[in-house]
């Protein structure tokens, strides 16, 4: 099929549009014949909703999976991971092994989380076990740090208890649902500041799972010194690392934007903590990303017209354990600094190279296996076909002497068995 790719978007961001234009693609509107639509999450809801009866043809590609919210809504992500763990436990997989305290050895990467108001009583039980702990309340459907607050007293969330006790439970509108998670009060601090990691992960298909990790992730630092002191619980500049919030702090700097590259982080950790623990940390980060994708793979609508680029938010605690905080379906494409703009431009560029091979009109039936040369700054994170095919180590970035080695190889075996049962 000759002709240039016709693109549509409802997100007016230069990093996107410049990438389309440099490929010589033609901009069209939604109502015309289009091949590539980079849509916002609201739009994808409409496209795949039952009422509109939208049918995508073979030469049309979109940038979201229809039910991405299984991974990207905070409550559903937790639900899917919990379900995944229980399944592995039921089939006796070594992955689901627990320690003497009942904590999962390899799958404990999400902080203890409950849905409110549904799990209110369960939460209270847990809260009473460690009453001096701090918890973070997050609205399920919002982003950019909106509506988040911290609590350390039950009285601060009385509202939800009242609702759950007095009203017979009718399905709440999803906008009012919250998740409450154990707040990681011992985050790893650098220069006395809290930070989190933003990593980009591209998924081209869920079954078989094929995902890529962008090598150039970054750390987002809070502008104010971290203090676990209770008086600062309300100061969102101390606790939330979202740039949308930090941007309004007094000390926000527009040159570096409070961001560090992941390679800076690596250099710092290797220099101050040693090479082994740093490699182990990064291996674990890859591990939890792959596990989270495996957890939602069975429930994902693996529509062949779709690919998706997720923004993973990860926090590292002071024992160098990584925690998955959330996954974003629509990572921000706004650039806060010059470096940022370059990074996001390249991110989209490499994403398009993988999702739309050769920049030509796509055929959604293709095998979604791009040649190595087009990966750009992406690296294969996990390729299920390859992992099953020759049993070779594709799961984690191959590095001699990785400390997840023995555990990793064991998991690959059981991973394969796990997948065959799903199939």
């Amino acid at each position, binding site marked *: 099929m000759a002709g240039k790719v016709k693109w549509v978007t409802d997100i007016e961001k230069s990093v996107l549009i410049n990438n389309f234009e440099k490929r010589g693609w033609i901009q069209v509107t939604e109502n015309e014949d289009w091949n590539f639509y980079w849509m916002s999450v609201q739009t994808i809801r409409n496209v795949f909703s039952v009422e509109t009866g939208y049918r995508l043809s073979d030469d049309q590609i979109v940038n979201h999976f229809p039910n991405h919210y299984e991974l990207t809504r905070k409550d559903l992500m937790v639900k899917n991971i919990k379900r995944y763990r229980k399944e592995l436990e039921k089939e006796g997989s070594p992955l689901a092994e627990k320690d003497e305290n009942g904590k999962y050895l390899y799958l404990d990467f999400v902080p203890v989380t409950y849905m409110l108001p549904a799990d209110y009583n369960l939460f209270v039980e847990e809260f009473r076990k460690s009453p001096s702990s701090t918890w973070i309340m997050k609205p399920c459907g919002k982003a950019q740090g909106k509506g988040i607050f911290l609590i350390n007293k039950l009285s601060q969330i009385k509202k939800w208890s009242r609702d759950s006790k007095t009203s017979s439970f009718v399905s709440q509108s999803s906008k009012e649902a919250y998740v409450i998670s154990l707040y990681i009060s011992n985050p790893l601090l650098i220069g006395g500041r809290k930070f989190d990691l933003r990593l980009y992960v591209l998924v081209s298909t869920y079954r078989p799972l094929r995902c890529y990790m962008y090598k150039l992730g970054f750390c987002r630092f809070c502008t104010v010194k971290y203090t676990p002191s209770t008086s600062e619980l309300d100061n969102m500049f101390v606790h939330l690392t979202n740039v949308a919030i930090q941007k309004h702090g007094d000390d926000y700097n527009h040159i570096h934007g409070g961001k560090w590259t992941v390679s800076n982080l690596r250099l710092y950790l290797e220099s101050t903590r040693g090479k082994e623990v740093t490699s182990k940390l990064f291996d674990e980060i890859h591990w939890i990303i792959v596990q989270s994708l495996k957890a939602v793979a069975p429930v994902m609508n693996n529509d062949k017209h779709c690919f998706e680029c997720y923004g993973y938010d990860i926090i590292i605690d002071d024992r160098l354990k990584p925690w998955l905080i959330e996954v974003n379906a629509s990572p921000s494409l706004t650039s806060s600094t010059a470096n940022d703009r370059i990074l996001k431009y390249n991110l989209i560029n490499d994403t398009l190279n993988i999702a739309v091979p050769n920049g030509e009109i796509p055929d959604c039936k293709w095998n979604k296996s791009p040649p190595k040369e087009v990966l750009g700054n992406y690296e294969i994170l996990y390729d299920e076909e390859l992992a099953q095919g020759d049993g070779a180590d594709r799961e984690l970035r191959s590095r*001699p002497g990785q400390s997840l080695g023995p555990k990793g190889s064991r998991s690959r075996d059981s991973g394969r068995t796990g997948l065959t049962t799903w199939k």
Partner: protein
Amino acid sequence: MLQEESDLSLIIAHIVQKLKGSSLYAQLERQAWTSLQRPEIKLESLKEDIKKFFKISGWEKKLQNAVYSELSVFPLPSHPAAPPEHLKEPLVYMRKAQGSWEKRILKSLNSMCTELSIPLARKRPVGEQKELLNKWNEMGTDEPDLSLFRPVYAPKDFLEVLINLRNPNYENGDSLSFRTHLGLIQVPLKVKDIPELKESFVELSLNTGQLGIDDSTQVPPELFENEHVRIGQKVLEEQDSAAAQQYIRQGSPTALRAELWTLILNISSQPEDILYYEQLKTNVIQHDLLVDSLIYKDVKLTASNDDYYFVFEDYLYQVLLCFSRDTSVLSHFAYNSASPPKSYIRGKLGLEEYAVFYPPNGVIPFHGFSMYVAPLCFLYHEPSKLYQIFREMYVRFFFRLHSISSHPSGIVSLCLLFETLLQTYLPQLFYHLREIGAQPLRISFKWMVRAFSGYLATDQLLLLWDRILGYNSLEILAVLAAAVFAFRAVNLMEVTSLAAAEAVLADLSTLKVMPLLQIFLFATVT
């Protein structure tokens, strides 16, 4: 033979005298006393037994490291009758130039002080002291009004002084010859050429493995990296300063770097060192100095805006404010051509009994000074350790980058070395840049004064500083500067103005230091 012997005994006497005053001496004495209780120490062979004990327990190694440290840092008097000024700087005209430069700086500082009606020093009221103590870990969030403060001087002001340096005993003649130096520096100091540099930096040659080259992902680690790491661990186990210095010439593995630098600089974190740092912190809390504002301003202008170092802003204050008050730094002026500025207690101008050094450590910070500390924050996160390492780096190396002297690692020699290398080995480029009014030194000066901090990516910078420690010399800065020009020569030949040349050389963050150095020294046709 006799001359050498008397030189040696002079050296020994000098070192013994220095070490007797150190805490190591007290520790050794204490160890010797307690060792008397050991069964193997017998009265008849007391001396031998104690010496044996020291050898086995590692104390002899510590002593060895201390002696080695002294030899590296302190230049030894070349002649017993040489006056102390010669230790600072043997050439009179250089001493004079440094003296008048210092007068200018002090005048600038004093006039700022008068204009702003701020005292050079004042005691803080108790309330302010408490506040500062509470904020000690986050001084970066303080936003004092610094708009009226200007840095006392910037590197380019210093460059102008160096350009005007002349040796009154040297007559160049007006006629141009092939020997005429076309650069900005016009003093006749001896600098090395490439054959001599190849000899000095023999461990950087093409046949020797290097970190920064042979540890890249394409090279299998069995070829060099694994063995090198293994040797590094062994060096650390042995705790041998001299071996560490030799080892690090091929670069340091990231995980071992912090410890290796500690060993080479002979820093031991004894309780008294931590106590000393705490004492300095107390001094900061109790008294406010004018230079504090200069430090704040410098950090805000430089490190706070840097992609790599902004995270460590607060550590920089904690180190630099203490540094200004550290009088032990004054001892380095014995071998620094500079002298600490003197100030007088109010109302007692000119009366020597009321003279104090200002700031207490005698070092007035200039624009970019905080960048000497910033890279170290990637290695040390414990404030007193970070402080000790920085102080030692300063009194061994950094001070030479902003004082006028004839020392081969002094900034004057570095500038001359840079220009000579360029003129000799890249004459076409040098001539072209000169013709368009873009003297190369005008661009590279700021790199060298800052030891490339803030210009290179941090991992590359640390590989460069590995070699500074390994060779105990700053000459590598000049070689790297020339290598950068050589690397970008093609683009530079096309430019037609100073601004365009600056633009070509504005961004060094993607450069890989070791390949550049290796190619320039060992693979260029000379």
